[in-house]
């Protein structure tokens, strides 16, 4: 019973580390998905006195992915009844060209500023509208959220690592008799500590399985998907192959590293 309690303590601690890491990964994925959505929705409006080709816009800044001219015919057609054909033709000639620029990724506010300046260096461009402010607030909030989650994950990982270290010291204490007897008969360090490593590895595997099950349940209930869809995002919260393998490697890495710390730090007992 005592042994089971010790196992559960380590499994819970390892699970917490893995869960914190996975949440960070999920938030990162959410923000990446949001960035893609922003990028697809986002465009810059350029007003110019002359006609520009997409290649010319691309040459101005490599952030520009493509451009399209905004048709003015619809506006002019509306004015047809109110203006004479002569005036309309004159207006057509003097009316500036409007372009919509799509970018290859969602820029940071400073990148938008730089892009605007670079475009405005061209004398033919009279106005550039970035609409940065509107997108900026939401995006900044998301970045802030990501940073908070990151700090939170690091704090959880640090605290749980300390807990694991403490748990392993307890294990070592429980196994110290056996380890010291083995030492008296010349057992090398790895053989004396084999049971600690075996326990750590088994618990790391169990913690990973529990994590997979937890995300399987979350996935089955679908409430996270509903939440994400309300902001127009669809992501895979947990990829059982990639995330599962990564989680297993993290769990094994943490467990083995902490066991090594304990074993190496321990002086041979008489």
């Amino acid at each position, binding site marked *: 019973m005592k042994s089971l309690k010790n196992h559960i303590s380590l499994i819970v601690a390892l699970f917490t580390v893995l869960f914190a890491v996975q949440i960070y990964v999920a938030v990162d994925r959410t923000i990446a998905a949001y960035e893609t959505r922003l990028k697809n929705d986002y465009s810059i409006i350029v007003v110019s006195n002359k006609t520009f080709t997409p290649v010319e816009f691309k040459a101005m800044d490599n952030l520009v992915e493509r451009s399209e001219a905004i048709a003015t015919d619809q506006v002019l057609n509306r004015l047809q009844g109110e203006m004479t054909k002569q005036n309309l033709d004159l207006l057509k000639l003097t009316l500036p060209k409007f372009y919509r620029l799509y970018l290859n990724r969602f820029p940071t506010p400073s990148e938008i500023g730089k892009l605007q300046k670079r475009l405005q260096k061209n004398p033919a461009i009279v106005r550039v509208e970035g609409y940065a402010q509107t997108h900026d607030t939401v995006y900044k909030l998301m970045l802030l959220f990501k940073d908070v989650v990151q700090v939170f994950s690091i704090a959880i990982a640090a605290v749980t690592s300390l807990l694991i270290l403490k748990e392993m010291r307890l294990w070592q204490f429980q196994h110290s*008799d*056996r380890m010291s*007897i*083995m*030492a*008296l*008969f*010349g*057992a*090398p*360090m790895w*053989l004396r500590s084999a049971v600690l490593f075996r326990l750590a590895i088994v618990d790391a595997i169990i913690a990973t399985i529990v994590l997979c099950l937890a995300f399987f349940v979350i996935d089955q209930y679908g409430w996270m998907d509903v939440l994400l869809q309300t902001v127009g995002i669809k992501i895979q919260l947990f990829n059982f192959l990639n995330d599962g393998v990564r989680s297993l490697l993290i769990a094994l890495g943490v467990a083995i590293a902490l066991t090594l710390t304990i074993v190496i730090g321990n002086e*041979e007992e*008489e």
Partner: protein
Amino acid sequence: MDKVIIAENLSLSYKEFESIISKANFSIDAGSFVFITGASGSGKSTLLKSFYGAITPRAGSLMVGGVKMNKISTSKLNFLRRHIGVVFQDYKLIKEWTIEKNVMLPLIISGYTKDVSGAQVQKLLGHVKLIHQAGKYPPELSGGEQQRVAMARALAHNPILILADEPTGNLDEYSSQVIWNLLEGANSQLKTTIVVVTHHIPSEITVPYKHFHIELGNIHEVS
């Protein structure tokens, strides 16, 4: 004759200015049977500990099996210990392991195959009359039986040297007899060097032996 243990001006202590053994000079021949006697707290067990590297000499030199014990590396110490069998007064058996696995310990450490070590363990458990207890755990056995298991373990890997600290201290007559018979058998048949720390030399001993006595930190040869 080859010497298994050579001590020159050997001083042992746990604290810096408190010498338990001071400037001892003695040697133990390979294949001999040696008793070390002395009053309680005279340093007999401490001396024995220094033979298997559980305590490092404070001064002088100590050679065990050709290995200098003064500044011995961990790997060398492990290697040496794999050629020594130790019997402790408190048995030092692994409680979570069966009797069979406890006896097998030195063979596991030395990397013997399961077949070889299994056969050796069966033979030794037969010698100590505990073959029927092989599957039990140490707490299920009496003190005498546990010491017989410890004795079998000490012999399992055919060591060059057996160190025994009060091996029959609290044992019944039958268990004591089994222990002395085994030690004598190992000495006479396998030419294993035996060093026994004890208060009194038992009357059952039939093999020729050497006797060292410790008094006030000094070691002198009695016979």
